[in-house]
């Protein structure tokens, strides 16, 4: 069977500096997978490799069993790989509904359609409404993104990515900078995601990770230290060493 996302022996070096050394990773359909590791472990580079910002030196990235290593970012999005950004990257001068609509239109590949009033497209309106309702954003539909709180903007990030109806959703530090209250809301939303989506979350907030993920991969020095269930990771001595500052072997 093919995985939703499969990474095989991925390598990336900047000059002589090897940032990613031979990383392999698999996400099954509907997976709730977290990627953790101390600063400098190479998490961001891995995200950039998967999403296509960077090109790997070696290795393969397969999405639903098909190689995507040579595709551009936009093409990967088309194949069902969506992501959120660490720094909000929204259409801030537009309303929440418009943000979501943009993603939907892009996903449907109807973005070059010159006729047909978008607000009279009942199907689209219903989809937007449903989508926003699911993320508790229905109330904010007609508000400009720039007028929302930071926490709400983070959720719009997720909404935008989800609107692309991805098979694999990459959440790049979704809780960064959020207040505890907002983290709870976010967690609630993430738990409610449909099982058709496989989620890979990169996050520093261990509480969020351990409550959300079913599988955790620990990345250290550009290599996978271990992959296992939250319990297994929690109990692993090597992981404790890493996080307590004692350098691993």
């Amino acid at each position, binding site marked *: 069977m093919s995985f939703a996302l499969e990474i095989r022996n991925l390598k990336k070096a900047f000059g002589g500096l090897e940032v990613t050394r031979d990383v392999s990773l698999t996400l099954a359909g509907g997976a709730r997978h977290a990627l953790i590791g101390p600063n400098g472990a190479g998490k961001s580079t891995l995200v950039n490799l998967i999403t296509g910002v960077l090109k790997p030196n070696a290795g393969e990235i397969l999405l639903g069993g098909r190689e995507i290593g040579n595709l551009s970012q936009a093409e990967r999005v088309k194949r069902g790989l969506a992501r959120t950004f660490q720094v909000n990257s929204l*259409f801030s001068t537009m*309303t*929440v509904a*418009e943000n979501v609509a943009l993603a939907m239109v892009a996903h449907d590949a109807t973005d070059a359609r*010159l006729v047909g009033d978008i607000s009279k497209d009942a199907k689209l309106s*219903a989809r937007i409404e449903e989508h926003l309702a699911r993320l508790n954003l229905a109330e904010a539909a007609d508000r400009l993104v720039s007028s929302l709180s930071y926490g709400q903007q983070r959720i719009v990030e997720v909404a935008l990515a989800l609107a692309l109806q991805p098979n694999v959703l990459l959440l790049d530090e979704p809780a960064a900078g959020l207040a505890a209250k907002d983290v709870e809301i976010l967690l609630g939303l993430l738990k409610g995601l449909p099982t058709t989506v496989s989620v890979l979350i990169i996050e520093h907030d261990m509480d969020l990770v351990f409550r959300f993920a079913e599988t955790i991969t620990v990345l250290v020095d550009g290599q996978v230290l271990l992959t296992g269930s939250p319990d297994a990771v929690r109990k692993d001595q090597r992981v404790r060493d890493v996080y307590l500052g004692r350098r691993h072997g």
Partner: protein
Amino acid sequence: MRELRDPSALPEMRSALRTHRLGWFEVVMLAVFAAVYYLLPGYLPLATQVAIMIIFAISLDLALGYGGIETLGHAVFYGIGGYAAGFYALYVWQEPISGLLVAALVAGLFGVLSGIVVLRAKGLTLVMLTLACATMVHEFANSMRAITGGDDGLSGYRIDPVLGLFRFDLFGRTAYVYSVCVLIVVFLLARIVANSNFGLVARGIRSNSQRMQLLGVPVLNRLVLLYAVSGALAGIAGALSAQVTKLVGLNTLAFTLSGNVLIVLILGGIGRLYGAVIGSIVFVALSDRAAAIDPFNWLFILGGLIVLVVWLAPDGIVGRFSALTWQFRKQERKP
């Protein structure tokens, strides 16, 4: 799959998508245009110029207000449309409506070609490239005297009666009604485009083109399309002017015109379509009257007006107005 919600839930979404809706503004404008015809017959030539300017400003609003294409050379489409209509009437057929379509096609095509090269740039470079492009075409038309008539303009063509029925008359009645009808069609067309998926995407590109690209939308491609549509509409404005005046001059390609249409649009307010209408009426009417009273010092008024508007109402007249209503609505919503 879940059933579609009942339509009563949709109006909310409609306001959230901020599409352009027909309303009292259009009704008032139609009434005004009709009133001008009956009550101010002596001002029909001027009113025709207003209608043409509105079409031109609407076209710029699509490119600049919706897509964020910063251009200081939009007259290039106006001029090309004008010359296309002139040549068409001179050598092919004097029928006016087909002339408009031909002009739109030629100007749109030029939009595609120039867009592909120009739109890769951004910011100041884009501004300069559009300016250079327009100046280049201006100088080209100037140096191709044998074909374009250079500074003497292109003239000597006839225009057949509209629909074979309405002759262009001395009083400018046909010209006026014809222009206003074309304006209505262009307004509706622009509205359709603005409210379409494509219109939304254009706004998205203006707001954050990088993210648009990452959503999988080929941004350059879409911008070129937008530029072409905008160019085609501007071409219609130029063609209309060519048919009504029966002469195309180099001034239709000049920097002054590009600057004026920008002034018109920013005066009115960008990204709203209404702005183009209000701005044109204010600008053309004011410049005509002021120039009639005191030709040279009129520049004082214009210059002062521009500085004041940008200072006090940076979003234009319509923008100022709708900013107030927006605030009002927000206050209303918040408990």
